[in-house]
Structure formats: structure tokens, C-alpha cells
């Protein structure tokens, strides 16, 4: 066996990774430090000017705030829903539990684009079923323009995101629940503990490490998520639901300001690196689940 064999085997994969991922990342860093536009092409070095321009843009701060909300609130809600469903499934009342367990996982399998599309139609101001129900129940007199109203748009996208992400939390929590040794509950029962106390003192502490992993992963994924917001609102109305990945597209391909787009995407990259390092440290300490 020649010593060079493994390198030959790795070569095609490395080639792809370098050309499509590593080189563009470096080029992106390069772009972010120059005056550059899709129309005028590459210009001079400009130091951190592009980054300054990003920071001076109020749209960036709005998108930043929205992204933090989307990632944190969305992830925590998804974890809550996932845990509730996992507890429900863990009651194990026969065959129906298995079937439901399967059905509850379906939103995770559906493509994000379809998920966004379905929610958008559900929330349609005139012909969506949600508004129709609200009007029938006399909660509102006129259909709410859910996605057309700056105050509700982001909220609706978060709801759709929770719908898509909770199954992942549910599956992980369910695995966590089933790994809790039965003896702990039996011992607590002997001591006369109530169901609520068992939940607080046995169930929750046992799920702690799963929850931390889920929280970090959820934040990383949502922080990076382009699809749901783009499909449902494109960041509108009037940028009210703009998030950072969508803003990169806005800067680069709508405003044709590649310098600003590159600078912003480097900022996203930096944030994700920090989050990922935290995640990897947590995971390698505790094991993957």
C-alpha cells in the first residue's frame, strides 16, 4: 500500500470543498475589504469601510434585532412545544402513540419552502382559514393582514419556524426521556413524591444536557436560516421582518452593493463560528445527545 493512497482518495472531495466553499469564503473576505460592485467591478482596497457602512445602516440593526428574536424566541418556543409533545408521546398508550409519533415528525421532513408556502396560504388575509375562523368567532371583524402588517409579520414567520423545528426537539427529548432510569421514579414514588415534583426533580434535570444541545443547534440553524423568511415575506413589509441572511441577498443582488453584502456575510460567518465553537465544546464534553 503506497503512502500516498489516502491523499489520492481524498483529492476529489477536497477539490470540491476548496473550490466551492473555501475559496469563495476567502474571496468574500477579500471583497469585503475592497470597493466592489456587480456593475462597476473590483475597486481599490478600502480597509474596513464596508464594515463601517454596514454598521451605519439602520437596516442592519433592524435585521440584527429581528434575527436575534427569530433565533432565540423561535428556538425556545420550539423546545417548549417539542418537550410537551415528547411528554405526551412518552405516556405510551399503545399503537396510537407510534402512529402519532410518526405524524408529529412530518413538519420536519417537509421542505422549508413548502412549509413557508403552506403557512402563507393559511394566513392569507382574504381566503385563509385562520382569518375566517377569527371572523366566525367574532374575535375580529375584518381579516388581519398577518404577513402584510409590520407588527405581525415576524411573529408569523416565527410561528412557522417553530412548526418546522419542534419535531427535531421532540425526537431528541423523547430519546432523552426514554433514557431516564426507571429506578429514579420508583425511588421517588416510595418517598411519596407527587407527579409534579417528580417532573421537576427527576425529568427536567435529566433532560438538561439534551436541552442545551438543542438550544445551541436551534440558534445556530435559525441564525443562518434564509428560506422561511424569504418565502413568507421576503423580509417585508418595508423590511419589518428582515433577517441577516436575507439582507445579504438584498445588499448584494438587489442593491448591487457587493462590498456591503460581503462585509455583512463575514459578520454572519464570524458569529456562527463563535456559536459553533461553543456548541462543539459543549457536545464534546457531554456526548452528542
Amino acid at each position, binding site marked *: 500500500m503506497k503512502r500516498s493512497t489516502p491523499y489520492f482518495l481524498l483529492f476529489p472531495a*477536497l477539490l470540491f*470543498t476548496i473550490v466551492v466553499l473555501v475559496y469563495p469564503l476567502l474571496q468574500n473576505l477579500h471583497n469585503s475589504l475592497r470597493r466592489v460592485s456587480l456593475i462597476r467591478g473590483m475597486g481599490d482596497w478600502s480597509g474596513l469601510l464596508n464594515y463601517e457602512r454596514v454598521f451605519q445602516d439602520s437596516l442592519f440593526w433592524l435585521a440584527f434585532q429581528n434575527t436575534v428574536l427569530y433565533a432565540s424566541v423561535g428556538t425556545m418556543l420550539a423546545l417548549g412545544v417539542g418537550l410537551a409533545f415528547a411528554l405526551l408521546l412518552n405516556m405510551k398508550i399503545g399503537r*396510537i402513540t407510534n402512529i402519532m409519533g410518526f405524524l408529529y415528525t412530518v413538519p420536519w421532513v417537509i421542505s422549508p419552502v413548502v412549509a413557508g408556502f403552506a403557512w402563507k396560504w393559511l394566513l392569507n388575509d382574504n381566503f385563509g382559514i385562520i382569518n375566517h375562523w377569527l371572523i366566525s368567532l367574532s374575535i375580529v371583524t375584518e381579516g388581519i393582514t398577518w404577513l402584510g402588517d409590520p407588527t405581525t409579520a415576524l411573529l408569523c414567520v416565527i410561528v412557522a419556524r417553530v412548526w418546522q423545528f419542534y419535531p427535531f426537539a421532540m425526537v431528541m427529548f423523547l430519546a432523552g426521556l426514554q433514557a431516564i432510569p426507571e429506578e429514579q421514579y420508583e425511588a421517588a414514588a416510595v418517598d411519596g413524591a407527587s407527579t409534579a415534583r417528580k417532573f421537576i426533580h427527576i425529568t427536567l434535570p435529566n433532560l438538561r444536557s439534551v436541552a442545551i444541545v438543542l438550544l445551541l443547534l436551534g440558534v445556530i440553524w435559525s441564525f443562518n436560516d434564509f428560506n422561511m423568511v424569504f418565502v413568507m415575506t421576503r423580509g417585508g413589509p418595508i423590511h419589518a421582518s428582515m433577517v441577516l441572511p436575507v439582507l445579504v441577498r438584498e445588499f448584494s443582488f438587489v442593491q448591487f452593493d457587493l462590498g456591503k453584502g460581503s462585509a455583512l456575510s463575514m459578520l*454572519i460567518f464570524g458569529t456562527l463560528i463563535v456559536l459553533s465553537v461553543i456548541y462543539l465544546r459543549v457536545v464534546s464534553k457531554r456526548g452528542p445527545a
Partner: protein
Amino acid sequence: MKRYITALALVVVAALVFLPILWTFATSLKPLPEVNAYPPRWTSPNMSLHPYVDMFFYLPFTTYTINSLLVAFCATVLTLLIGSLAGFAFARFEFPGKRFFLLIFLLSQMLPGASVIVPLFQLMSTVGLYNTLLGLILIHTAILLPFVIWLLYGFFSGIPREVEDAALIDGCSRVAALRRVLLPLALPGLGGTALFAFLGSWNEFFFALILTESDTTRTIPVGIGLFVGEFTDVWNQMSAAAILFSIPPLVLFLMMRQTFVKGLVAGAVK
């Protein structure tokens, strides 16, 4: 009693969870005047499968479907070929730089699409692959590779080296050992990985959206994602497209539920 309350809760939750899907499905069967009628209704006597046929003729979904199938198929084959070589190298060899290369693949999996998209757009334009299916196939291959290598590395490592050694002692060449012994054993793993890769490409939206610009090269998710502003108001045909598009992922999920759930946990590195 408690049993029935739990069962009831399970069913109510399922109805809530399926609300968006059921509403889309109901819409996909209705004729257009009833879709745009108030009050909206769940059913109608005029429900039919017409929207499922019409979308292929009135909307460009014939082209989109061919494009999606072609891209996902080619990207899967390419990823598996290249990925199994790399996975094999990681599983069977000790060599300087192994940890470094593993790290590169691990990190490239975490790379946000937004941080490479602008230079990729420039690169693809320069080499003439912007707005081509070939370009999209190559991009999808690259973004699927890290995860596929990771999975295959695991599968190959799980096959005891002794099996191969025994074949070598019996007079097989190294290549024959790989082909006759290792590959058949790894086949279930390869199959599962292929399904993941196919789904990854089938569902991919971000790169497909930005690196294509005409109906001849768009894939189904791009067609659905760009719906508003392009094909306004044909919600029934678009719903039909969304439902049809979701069938392959759902079928694969049904077939491979166990692997899928394991993959969820393994994919947690992404």
C-alpha cells in the same frame, strides 16, 4: 379514563400540526373560483385532480420537475462516488493530516450559505456555469459532501477490518476486497446516505434561487418560493405543486424512519 384523555389529546395535537398541510391539500383540489371565494370552505362538490394536471401545462412545472430530478440524481451519484472514496480513506488509513482534513470537512458543513454566495456567483458567471443545471449539480455536490463523508466514514468504520483482511489472505487484491467484500457490506449504509443526499438536493433552495435566473434552469423549490409576484392567484395549482413536491421526502421518510431518526441525531453536528 386517563387513557382516553391522552388519546384525545394526541389526536387534537395531530389535527393542529397538520392544519397547514391539510389546508394546502384541500386547496389543491378546488377549482380556482372557489379558492378565491369568501367564505373559504374545506370541501366543495367540485373538487377534482385538475389542478395537479393543469400545473404542468399552465405553469412551468414540467421543466422544474425535470430539472429537480436531474439535479438531485446527478448530485447524489457524484456525491456518493466522491464521498465514499474519502470516507474509505478516513476509515481505513492512518496518515499525516487526517485530523486536519476531517476538521476541514466538519467546518465546511457549518459554513453559512450567505457567506460564500457572492464569490460563488462571480465564479459561476466567470466560468459560464451561472444559470446552468451543471453548475447547480456541482454546487449541490459540494455542499452535500461533508455530511455524506461524515456518514460514510461512520459506516465504513463500523465494518470490521478483519473481514477485508480475510479476503486479502484468501488471495483477493486490495481493490477486489473493496469491491467484493466491503461494498456489499456497506450497501445498506450507502443506500441510506444516497437518500439523504437526494433529499438534500431536492429540497435545496438558497443556492438554486440565487444561481439560476430563468424558467429553463429553475428547480421546483425555486418555483414555489418565487410564487408570489410571478403566478399570483393560482393558489390551487401552486398548492398541488407543493403537495406533489413533498411526496418524495415523505415516502423516503416512511421507508427509512429508523435511519432517519438516527440521522437526525447524527446530523446534529451541522
